């Protein structure tokens, strides 16, 4: 009789919602629309959906199966499958740890923006006035108010990763809040997580739907949506398109972190995870497409507003320079007038040329942004132009928070579940303490990201902390299950749990397609890394008011190497350790076994 029965989800619905909440995260909102735009709009859906079925769903199914069968976190589960490859679980935990460290900073930023939305004028709508009260602050004038608010007031960013100031207290407070809320969500394990996911998984869809209606009714939104859906089929010939589609599916589903294994380890033994895997993967991709429609409607609106503002500025410039009556030039006739004036007053016009902007709707739409830039700069710029902007701002940042918090649940669970399995502290209260310690540890280290150069460290972690190691981990995972553990044994386990064997589609994907795809991605990453030369990052230049590409200093590159090596090396190191231990204790263990069989 087990004293500590493994906690379970109250119902399979909770498990599905937990997976949805984990998989549907910020990447669906800020990475997929960017890829869609870069790789030919509607045409990108073809490689995306293809990769979903070749790689996404089979690997998702695999991880769920392992978790549900072994009923342990990632370390225990992989050790049980093959003792030499228990290092995979450890690598997953290390990668999850890195993710936890930097991911909650995004939630801190969302909190910051959310709290600042409760003002009559949104602080990123206008430039603050300088000390002399003669005009806006210079840095804000060079850049835009939204960029200024993000880089100066939110981050207080330094000009490079080498320079460091102190901790930004506002950021630190928001980070503490984010970690306390994360702790609250996971403190009772699946009991608390199971209830929270009802909200974190469903409310973002409500907000997305509301935003869809708002977005489509915005002036000029149709330009953006048209731009997105016009497929540029020639992009399909570009191999980068296919690679990016594969990578996006891979990271979007959150494979390799151990969170899926952790979640499914709390399932009933006979839970039908096959159907759930397909459902969650489809929901994840569907959300990406849905979010990109909203994003492109917003893009279209923002581009149209900027274009019309540009035309208005040009109109004023012409009026003032040539002293024409106010209603002689309208926004529509600006270009005609430019030609007319160029013909009649060529010298005066030539003087004007330097100040004349080239207003182009296409180029406004072409500015493809991803990541934090999209979420915090582009979107907030669009929001400030909407009527009732405070309401839309609050809704939007609540949605970002829920998406981010939902993913954090999975990340922290991936760390705590294996540690719990080690029975470090076996009591129920012990798990409360363990969760608290993990959160505290991550919070203290995460404070480093709230310093003035913290955003650059964030970018480093985001670009290098999890990408390469995950590919490696999942590749080893699928090879282990297919060849070392054996596909036949795996089939039998699934039959044991579900009552039927997986059909030929799954088996072919696990044994051939997914490993091949992963190896191709892996090689591509290595080649890209070598070809790319010194890794670079975008540093914010105060004087110019924009980001410049800067190379990482030596210590930065060393740290990147450490990040990559620390998680990847867990696998060979653990294998070596287990091998050495087995050799030492091999004799003892055999003798013990014979004794116990005789006494029984």
């Amino acid at each position, binding site marked *: 009789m087990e004293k500590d029965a493994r906690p379970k989800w109250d119902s399979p619905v909770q498990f599905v919602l937990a997976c949805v909440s984990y998989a549907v995260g910020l990447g669906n909102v800020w990475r997929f629309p960017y890829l869609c735009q870069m790789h030919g709009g509607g045409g990108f859906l073809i490689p995306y959906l293809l990769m979903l079925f070749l790689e996404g769903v089979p690997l998702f199914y695999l991880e769920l199966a392992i978790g549900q069968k072994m009923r342990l976190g990632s370390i225990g589960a992989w050790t049980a499958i093959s003792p030499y490859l228990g290092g995979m679980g450890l690598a997953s935990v290390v990668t999850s740890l890195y993710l936890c460290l930097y991911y909650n900073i995004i939630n801190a930023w969302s909190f910051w923006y959310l709290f*600042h939305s409760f003002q009559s004028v949104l602080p990123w709508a206008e430039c603050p006035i300088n000390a002399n009260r*003669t*005009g806006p602050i210079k840095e804000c004038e060079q850049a835009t108010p939204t960029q200024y608010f993000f880089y100066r007031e939110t981050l207080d960013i330094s000009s490079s990763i080498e320079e460091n100031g102190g901790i930004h207290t506002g950021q630190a407070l928001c980070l503490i*809040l984010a970690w306390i809320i994360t702790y609250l969500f996971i403190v009772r394990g699946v009991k608390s997580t199971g209830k929270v996911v009802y909200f974190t998984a469903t409310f973002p869809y409500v907000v997305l739907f509301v935003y869809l209606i708002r977005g489509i009714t915005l002036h000029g939104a149709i330009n953006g949506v048209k731009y997105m859906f016009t497929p540029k089929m020639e992009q399909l010939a570009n191999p980068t398109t296919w690679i990016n589609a594969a990578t996006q599916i891979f990271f979007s589903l959150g494979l390799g972190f151990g969170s899926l294994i952790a979640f499914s380890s709390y399932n009933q033994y006979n839970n039908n995870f096959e159907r759930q895997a397909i459902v969650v993967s489809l929901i994840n991709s569907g959300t990406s497409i849905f979010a990109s429609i909203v994003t492109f409607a917003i893009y279209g609106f923002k581009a149209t507003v900027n274009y019309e503002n540009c035309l208005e500025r040009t109109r004023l410039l012409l009026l003032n320079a040539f002293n024409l009556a106010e209603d002689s030039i309208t926004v529509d006739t600006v270009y005609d007038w430019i030609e007319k004036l160029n013909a009649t007053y060529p010298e005066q016009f030539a003087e004007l040329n330097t100040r004349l902007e080239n207003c182009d709707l296409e180029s406004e739409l072409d500015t493809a942004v991803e990541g934090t830039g999209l979420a915090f700069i582009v979107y907030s710029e669009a929001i400030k132009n909407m009527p009732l902007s405070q309401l839309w701002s609050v809704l939007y940042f609540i949605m970002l928070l829920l998406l981010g918090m939902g993913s954090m649940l999975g990340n922290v669970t991936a760390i705590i579940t294996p540690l719990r399995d080690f029975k470090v502290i076996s009591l129920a209260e012990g798990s*409360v303490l363990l969760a608290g310690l993990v959160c505290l540890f991550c919070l203290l280290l995460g404070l480093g990201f709230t310093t003035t150069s913290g955003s650059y460290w964030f970018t480093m972690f985001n670009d290098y902390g999890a990408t390469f190691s995950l590919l490696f981990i999942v590749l080893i995972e699928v090879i282990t299950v297919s060849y070392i553990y054996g596909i036949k044994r795996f089939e039998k386990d699934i039959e044991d749990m579900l009552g039927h064997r997986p059909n030929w589609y799954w088996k072919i994907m696990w044994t051939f397609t997914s490993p091949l795809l992963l190896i191709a991605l892996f090689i591509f990453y290595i080649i890209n890394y070598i070809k790319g030369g010194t890794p670079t990052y975008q540093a914010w230049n105060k004087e110019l008011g924009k980001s410049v590409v800067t190379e990482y200093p030596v210590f930065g590159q060393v740290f990147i190497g450490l990040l990559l090596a620390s998680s990847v090396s867990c696998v060979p190191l653990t294998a070596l350790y287990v091998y050495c231990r087995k050799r030492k204790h091999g004799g003892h263990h055999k003798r013990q076994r014979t004794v116990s069989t005789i006494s*029984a």
Partner: protein
Amino acid sequence: MFEKIFFLLCLSTALAEQLCRPEASDGYRVRLSIKTALGDEAYVWNDNEMFLFRATLAFAMRNQISGQEFEVSNIIVCDETPRVSFWFVVTSPQNTSQLVDKESVEEAVRKSRNRINSAFLLTDKTLEFIGIPPTLAAPVNPDTPPWLIVFGLVMGAVGAGIIVLLASSVVQKKRKNDEKPDDEEIDEETRVKTVENSAASEGIYNRSFSDDERFTHM
């Protein structure tokens, strides 16, 4: 007689024209954007409006330089364009051929900017004095930044949640501890009973087999 008056008038206008030269040193260019500001309710710019402008500026000069009585005739305007922009200079009431220096004019306009704007139903942006940047409104700095208030609210709610959670777990533990001694007594009684009643006892559960379950996959 009439010729003299006519001659004097011509002379004065000629002098005025000489004094008021666009882009000369002691004047400013004014630009009005009436249609932008008022849209459909825009008024037409005509000589009466110009008269109002000169009067308002004379008022501003009077406020600035106390003692000197500036009249409408002291404000000379030239180079009117269809944009509705023009150049103006201010002559001293004591000596009409001498211009008031730029700094005083600037000060005067700055001080009475609000009054000048409201006379024309315009704002700092739509009634521009080119070369005199408007003094922007001082930023409102509340004692507690509003974001901190919202943060405090949320933090308070979360803190209350944690306390409730911890308290409920402590209460649950207490209840368990209270029930445990009762359970143990009941158990002992039943065990004693079974020993008395039947020969076959429950026995002690042998753990050595159940622990191995996890590691042997046959």
